[in-house]
């Protein structure tokens, strides 16, 4: 039976409904409004996990996002198993199922805890020292074992079934943190009508008012004021209030990433609700009201379950109505822990003793504690905690040494002071400054339009915090045109101060003691580890961090960084600022990949582009392949055909009769203007001025370095108008390349460039019967060889719609490309298909297109070229205008290395065994018997089975290849060496007669 630590009449959840939950298979009852941590503590459960390295039993340290210990796995269903959830922020819902992590076989008895006793082996940097010998053991033994033992929690093994939302937002004032400071700042700005966003990571606003029992604002209880004010803000049109929303990243120009948790706290989220929402907010000003985080004390065995932050115990009592123990010890170096002791004492919990490291502390809190009859031991330290699965005692000693005394406790509260949360300020690239008087880093110089208020700015009491925050809100409102309103500055009253700081190891973790006094709980880093790191030569805190792993992992050292720094500084004999502070990086707390990716997954990962005939192709059985963002028909198998059979049939049919191919994905650019020809002369290697209207030319585009950038057929429609085609993949970059030169190098040319890739659908009709298929449908175009020779273009109509009809061929057979407005693409395709059927034509896809062009030795830029290939290398020198004085790449082509012998040249390869099809990318050698590594003289760029040739064909780039015609070369493969003969890259119809066939 679980014990009941809920104290009636305390906390704010008294009227709440019961929520059942299970932890490690045991069933418990909590109440709505609990966190998993408060519900466990209410049942007397402190032991919730095992530590990462030593597998030490761990409890709940905190009551918030800084929690390093209480990490659990929350399981909703087979696909929803979230690891490393902080029990302190997981809101309880009815039916919640949680499991502890990092233990086997059970939490109370864990085999891995042997590493705790073998502690010497696991000292700081043990990875770098321990697994060095024998060398072979690393791969076979150490690495697999380490990998099995590493990691926290278990990653889900199914795709995430939840969906995640995303919003962009703009505002005048973004307030990060919804404690007293954030609320006051938001209120001041909101009243003037400026646009305000207020967010807080917790379910309810109020921050430290959650536990600060004595605070009041405008005469009301502080917490009640917070709730009422936030409700008022939420009702205002110019304010957006976001609870459960963490500001995780502060980026340039006041761009802040927020993640809103929408359904993780619901028992049944329902299908429609996203799990989380990513907010990308651009604010004119950011008000940082991020508060501060309490630190623990560093002494031996300070990690025993039941040892926790004083403010956490106070939160569990004052908000959740839960006592963390019945006989509680307190160890502190400031006043705030006294308040926890006082509240607990008043609630009927025995305070065994307060141990205060300070000599003769005097303050109202100390007096009140004494007046309540609490034993206060000053000038003393807790040097050791007793117990294993739960703290059972604290051993105290005067800090100057002397007699020890052991006091039984069942919970031990500690506080060494408060660390201002400068994480987001630091992420904004503001520089923190060390305040020597209070031993803490505070916002120093600002890099962006933001301001820090309250505890994160080092303001230690509530009255000053509210004043400061309200003033910052008023100032922002004035700066951004808020209307003048009568100031309603809230008056806050509190007797408490968060001042007082103690950094580093206490006497219980002294130099001469071989004890485990934890600085960083999550990474099991002790004071000794940090001293050892310094002793072994680490000088910068960045080195110490990496060597010891202090401040790493999911909590990013929120409680540990300052202690680690102080111990390192002390060991080095330096001041803290000299040792430096590690960099604060986003995210502040872990953010799911789901939230960041949000809608951009599956079909929405990348845009999908489909041509006008896509549905037709799918209906006719096409197998589709991805070409960049395009979906293209790959081949059209008939019943019973595999890819090989389909492609062979398509290849033969095109050359025998005709084939239809959707070439719409080709890039198309219209170059128009009085200087269009001049511009073409500069951008392409070919001469254009003398090309007649109505004629086409194959153009090559180079980069300035002389290498081929793109190619395509260009039609001159009129003296001032060119229809340029580019490769499918090159469409966008060629347009960019042209615009770049037109705008910046040749702005004197009077030319307009228009991308028309998506305006025109392109249907290639190729093969001896191509003219017969198109002619009946074309209007106003004489398609005879005399009137419309190869490489010409005509404008007219087809099927009643406008067309730009190109006579051109990428197959080597007579061919046309029918351009029609994209909206008519499908209708014209279907009409051409119907005509084609009369002649036995087929539809073919990209694979057949590739084979047919390779039979003719036509290159594909990007397949047969790779950005280091010149026109001469590919045998296309004829396309470079010899009389031209300028074009992009003209100077590059004369670079010595581009004209030198030994360049790789495009050739054909025939395998000695015609049945063997080479692998594309395979390397070519002259002598297969040479020892490895062999001298490679080239590589295969294209290789196919050619049914038309009755053999395999291949193209290759081979050093000085054109001088090797007829020679035998070798392609070494893993299991054999393939003999090949160098030949012309034109395998079919070498004379080219079929272009008019």
């Amino acid at each position, binding site marked *: 039976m679980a014990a009941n630590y809920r104290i009636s009449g305390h906390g704010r959840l008294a009227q709440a409904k019961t929520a059942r939950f299970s932890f490690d298979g045991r069933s418990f009852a909590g109440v709505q409004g609990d966190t998993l941590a408060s519900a466990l503590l209410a049942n007397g459960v402190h032991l919730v996990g095992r530590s990462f390295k030593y597998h030490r039993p761990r409890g709940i340290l905190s009551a918030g996002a800084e929690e390093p210990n209480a990490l659990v796995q929350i399981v909703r269903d087979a696909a929803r198993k979230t690891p490393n959830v902080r029990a302190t922020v997981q809101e309880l819902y009815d039916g919640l199922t949680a499991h502890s992590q990092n233990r086997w076989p059970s939490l109370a008895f864990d085999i891995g805890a042997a590493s705790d006793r073998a502690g010497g082996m696991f000292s700081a940097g043990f990875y770098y020292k321990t697994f060095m010998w024998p060398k072979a053991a690393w791969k076979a033994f150490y690495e697999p074992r380490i990998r099995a033992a590493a990691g926290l929690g278990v990653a889900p093994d199914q795709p995430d079934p939840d969906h995640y939302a995303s919003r962009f937002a703009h505002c005048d004032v973004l307030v990060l943190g919804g404690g007293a400071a954030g609320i006051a700042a938001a209120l001041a700005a909101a009243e003037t009508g400026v646009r305000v966003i207020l967010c807080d990571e917790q379910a309810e606003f109020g921050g430290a008012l959650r536990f600060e029992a004595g605070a009041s604002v405008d005469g009301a209880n502080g917490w009640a004021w917070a709730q009422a004010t936030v409700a008022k803000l939420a009702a205002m049109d110019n304010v957006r209030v976001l609870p459960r929303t963490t500001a995780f990243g502060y980026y340039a*120009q006041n761009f802040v990433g927020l993640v809103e948790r929408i359904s993780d706290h619901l028992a049944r989220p329902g299908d429609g609700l996203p799990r989380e929402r990513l907010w990308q907010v651009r604010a004119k000003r950011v008000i940082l009201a991020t508060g501060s985080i309490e630190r623990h004390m560093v002494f031996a065995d300070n990690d025993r379950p039941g040892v926790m932050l004083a403010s956490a115990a106070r939160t569990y009592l004052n908000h959740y109505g839960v006592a963390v123990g019945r006989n509680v010890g307190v160890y502190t170096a400031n006043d705030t822990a006294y308040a926890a002791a006082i509240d607990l004492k008043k609630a009927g919990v025995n305070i065994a003793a307060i141990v205060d490291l300070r000599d003769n502390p005097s303050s109202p809190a100390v007096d009140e504690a004494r007046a309540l009859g609490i034993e206060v031991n000053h000038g003393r330290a807790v040097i050791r905690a007793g117990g294993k699965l739960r703290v059972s005692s604290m051993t105290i000693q005067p800090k100057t040494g002397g007699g020890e005394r052991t006091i039984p406790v069942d919970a031990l509260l500690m506080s060494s002071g408060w660390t201002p949360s400068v994480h987001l300020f630091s992420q904004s690239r503001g520089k923190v400054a060390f305040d020597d008087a209070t031993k803490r880093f505070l916002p120093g110089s600002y890099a962006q339009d933001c301001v820090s208020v309250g505890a994160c700015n080092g303001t230690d009491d509530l009255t000053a915090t509210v004043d400061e925050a309200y003033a910052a809100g008023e100032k922002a409102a004035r700066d951004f045109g808020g209307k003048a309103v009568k100031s309603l500055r809230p008056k806050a009253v509190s007797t408490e101060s968060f001042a007082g700081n103690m950094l580093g190891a206490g006497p219980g973790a002294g130099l001469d003691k071989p004890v485990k006094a934890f600085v960083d709980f999550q990474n099991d880093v002790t004071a000794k580890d940090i001293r050892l790191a310094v002793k072994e030569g680490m000088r910068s805190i960045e080195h110490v961090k990496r060597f010891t792993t202090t401040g790493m992992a999911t909590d990013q050292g929120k409680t540990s960084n300052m202690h680690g720094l102080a111990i390192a500084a002390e060991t080095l004999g330096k001041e803290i600022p000299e040792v430096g502070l590690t960099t604060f990086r986003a995210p502040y707390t872990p953010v799911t990949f789901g939230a960041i990716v949000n809608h951009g997954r599956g079909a929405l990962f990348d845009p999908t582009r489909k041509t006008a005939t896509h549905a037709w192709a799918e209906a006719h059985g096409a197998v589709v392949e991805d070409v960049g963002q395009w979906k293209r028909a790959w081949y059209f198998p008939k019943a019973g055909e595999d890819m090989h059979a389909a492609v062979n049939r398509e290849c033969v049919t095109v050359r025998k009769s005709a084939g239809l191919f959707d070439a719409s994905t080709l890039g198309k650019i219209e170059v128009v203007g009085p200087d269009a020809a001049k511009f073409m002369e500069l951008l392409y290697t070919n001469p254009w001025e003398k090309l007649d209207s109505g004629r086409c030319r194959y153009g090559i585009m180079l980069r300035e370095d002389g290498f081929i950038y793109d190619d395509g057929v260009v039609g001159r429609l009129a003296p001032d108008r060119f229809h340029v085609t580019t490769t499918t993949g090159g469409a966008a970059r060629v347009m960019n390349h042209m*615009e770049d030169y037109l705008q910046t190098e040749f702005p004197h040319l009077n030319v307009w460039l228009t991308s028309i890739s998506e305006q025109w659908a392109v249907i290639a009709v190729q093969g001896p019967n191509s003219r017969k298929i198109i002619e009946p449908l074309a209007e106003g175009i004489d398609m005879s060889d005399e009137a419309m020779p190869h490489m010409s273009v005509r404008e007219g109509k087809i099927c009643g719609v406008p067309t730009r009809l190109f006579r051109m061929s990428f197959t080597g057979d007579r061919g046309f490309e029918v351009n029609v407005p994209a909206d008519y693409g499908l209708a014209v395709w279907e009409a051409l298909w119907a005509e084609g059927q009369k002649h036995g034509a087929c539809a073919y896809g990209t694979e057949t297109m590739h084979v047919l062009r390779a039979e003719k030795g036509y290159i594909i830029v990007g397949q047969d070229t790779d950005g280091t290939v010149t026109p001469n290398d590919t045998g296309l020198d004829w396309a470079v205008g010899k009389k031209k004085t300028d074009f992009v790449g003209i100077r590059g082509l004369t670079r010595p290395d581009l004209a030198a012998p030994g360049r790789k040249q495009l050739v054909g390869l025939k395998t000695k065994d015609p049945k063997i099809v080479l692998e594309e990318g395979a390397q070519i050698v002259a002598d297969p018997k040479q020892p490895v590594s062999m001298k490679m003289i080239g590589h295969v760029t294209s290789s196919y089975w050619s049914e038309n040739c009755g053999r395999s064909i291949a193209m290759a780039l081979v050093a000085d290849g054109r001088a090797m015609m007829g020679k035998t070369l070798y392609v070494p493969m893993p299991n054999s060496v393939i003999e090949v003969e160098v030949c012309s890259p034109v395998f079919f119809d070498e004379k080219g007669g079929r272009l008019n066939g």
Partner: protein
Amino acid sequence: MLLIRCPYCEEERPELEFRNAGEAHIARPSNIAATSDEDFEKFFFIRSNPKGIIFERWRHMHGCARFFNAVRDTVSDKFVMTYKAGEPKPDLAAIAESGPAAWANRPPDQLNVKKPAAKRKTIKKGEA
């Protein structure tokens, strides 16, 4: 995500609308075919890689599509200014005076916030 001011659209737009286009103020020689190997090397291959201020070209790809020039600090990734293509290289000394408002540094003491340091009490030796 940065905001970049397009000098043609005359407004700040999100970084996603822009593409970097390499270093600025490198003009293509008008007689490029006749340039020496050394001059061509300088023009085509050699680029500065400064730690600090760089002059570079950007294109408002998904906006007006114009190429323009920008002065950016490679250390802070801050755009100091942008200007139209063809305009002369700005004077660096003049730039330092006029950064864009969004990056302006407003320390707390200019935000009618009381300086927290003023009331920080000193801590006795031995406590820290």
